[in-house]
């Protein structure tokens, strides 16, 4: 009897640690498995009106519209418009552009194939948002090779002008 208990305990312990490991080590700390933009756009009928989880980088501007706002979230394939309550985006600090990486967020919300509220747009009406990681400013080191090349070409243009002026002078 004792042996049976101890073996059960071992099995349960292993299962518990496996579950704990999976929870801690998987990269997604959000709601559940997120769906890609390609999957949503290619299967609009299947997901229309359903609550989906979508993850990506906020790009461009946060466009405030009264109590709500539009944000556009790009998952490296496509960007999808998210209609979201203004109060839910207080934590958004960075949006993607040439000079910054935008915050990575996970959105849970209702997917609309052609939204009645927004003139037939394909969009997601967010119910909740989780910031997966914060964006940052991107700093670019000045490319010295390009500077040298630009200087070299400037010298060539100047040299060409001098040669041409001399030629025109001698030609009369």
């Amino acid at each position, binding site marked *: 009897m004792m042996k049976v208990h101890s073996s059960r305990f071992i099995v349960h312990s292993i299962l518990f640690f496996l579950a704990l490991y999976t929870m801690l080590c998987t990269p997604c700390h959000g709601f559940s498995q997120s769906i890609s933009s390609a999957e949503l756009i290619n299967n609009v009928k299947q997901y229309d009106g359903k609550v989906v989880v979508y993850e990506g980088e906020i790009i461009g*501007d946060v466009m405030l519209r009264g109590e709500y706002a539009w944000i556009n979230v790009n998952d490296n394939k496509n960007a999808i418009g998210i209609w979201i309550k203004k109060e839910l985006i207080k934590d958004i600090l960075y949006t993607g552009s040439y000079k910054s990486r935008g915050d990575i967020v996970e959105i849970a919300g209702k997917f609309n194939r052609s939204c009645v509220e927004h003139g037939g*747009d*394909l969009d997601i009406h967010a119910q909740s948002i989780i910031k997966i990681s914060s964006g940052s400013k991107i700093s670019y080191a000045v490319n010295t090779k*390009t500077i040298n090349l630009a200087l070299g070409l400037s010298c060539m*243009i100047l040299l*060409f002008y001098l040669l041409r002026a001399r030629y025109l002078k001698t030609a009369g």
Partner: protein
Amino acid sequence: MILKPQLKDIKHIGHYLGKVTIGVGFMMLVPFITGLVFGEINPALDFLISAEIALLCGLILTWVCATDKELNWMQGMVVVSSSWLVAMVLSAIPLYLSGHYKSFLDSCFETMSGFTTTGLTLVQDLDHLSYSHNLWRHLGPFIGGQGIVIIALALFMKGGAGSFKMYVGEARDEKILPNVIHTARFIWLISIVYLIIGTLALGIVGMLIGLKPQNAFFHAACVFMAGFDTAGFAPQSQNILYYHSLLFEIVTIIIMVAGTFNFNLHYQLWRGNCKELGRNIETRTLLMSVMLTFFIVAIGLNKLGIYPNAMMLFRKGFFQLISGHTTTGYMTIYAQQFIQEWGDLALTGIICAMALGGCACSTAGGIKMLRVGIIFKALKQDIKRLALPERAIVAQKFHHMKTVFLEDAQARAVLLITMSYITIYVLGALIGVGCGYPVLNSLFESTSAAANVGLSCGITDASMPTILKITYIIQMWAGRLEFMSVFALFGFIVAFFRGK
């Protein structure tokens, strides 16, 4: 017997090509300054070296091939067609240096798409592209829409017979003013005045819908340039869908329609001759064609019930239809939705609208409304001839700036260009099918490229076969120049190798 071109022919072509190259080099200074203003040093340097390369090539060409003689027809046509190829390669350098293109061919595709006001794009990660590179993408249509050669004409050339040949070679056979240089300058005047008005209008709308002021006016300038020049590029990857605004879409529709009108018609309107709008064969044909093709699209969309109410159907269907008909290519839906959602009938409506295109002597592509109108008039004339006694003289008139009698030679020329367009649409579609794409998708993308539209059903992608990229580049180039100068270049090359 084919005559081999002589050295003087090549010198003449080289000299004028050099002038156009210098013009392209100077245009690159605009994004260079933009880069400095926005603190984008590396992009600014990309444009500095590209401008220097263009200026150096142009200066060498104009010096080595120095001439003060006028161009003949063949030389004028060859200068135009080769100018577009040279401009494509030189303008692709800064885009390639941005690192947002997978290959140099992709950046060439992008610049040809821009110059020809097509709008098909192969850019990667557009949402992180610098202001200066993005501005260059949109400046391309603004330069190409008005005409690359027209810039050189307006800036560097004296008026003369040679200038007129180059002006015609760039698919502009209508002179607005008696002097071709004055016409070129007037086209630029119109474009710059509209650019200021359009940028202000879109910028204000942009701020109202929540864009930051800096972005609102930058986007406004970009969207105006690509909208008025019927190109369809946008600063963000979602195109016009990014803005989620009906007001923005309405202003964009007005800009697209203004861009598709004949510059000659703009001139008449500027002079206060508003009656011309109602009498002109092109505007009448455009109105009829828009109504007919929208009817097809609406039936197609209604049958499938994608959009639950009429307002939604109108907003999405009409925007895409106008975008296709004016050959702009702006989108408020995803490319995949065309194939998966819109169905064959609505797609056919859009293909027809794209194929027909906008007005002649505008920035629009396609067969053009003037030609469609003339074909119908010629058909009407032929039916009348059949119905009336043989001795009866049947005269057919049409109004285009002035009332003109339709001649058989004119109808024949129009049919020849129309047939060329249809052939190029079909050839491109066949190559698409050969690459493994479905027939309707291939026809859609081929028509979009050759009619310089830019709507995509998803084929245009960095991963598409190289042969298809080259096919679309040739289609965009030939479609924009309306074939004649492209045929002249091929003839010149053949004569160079096989002539005696």
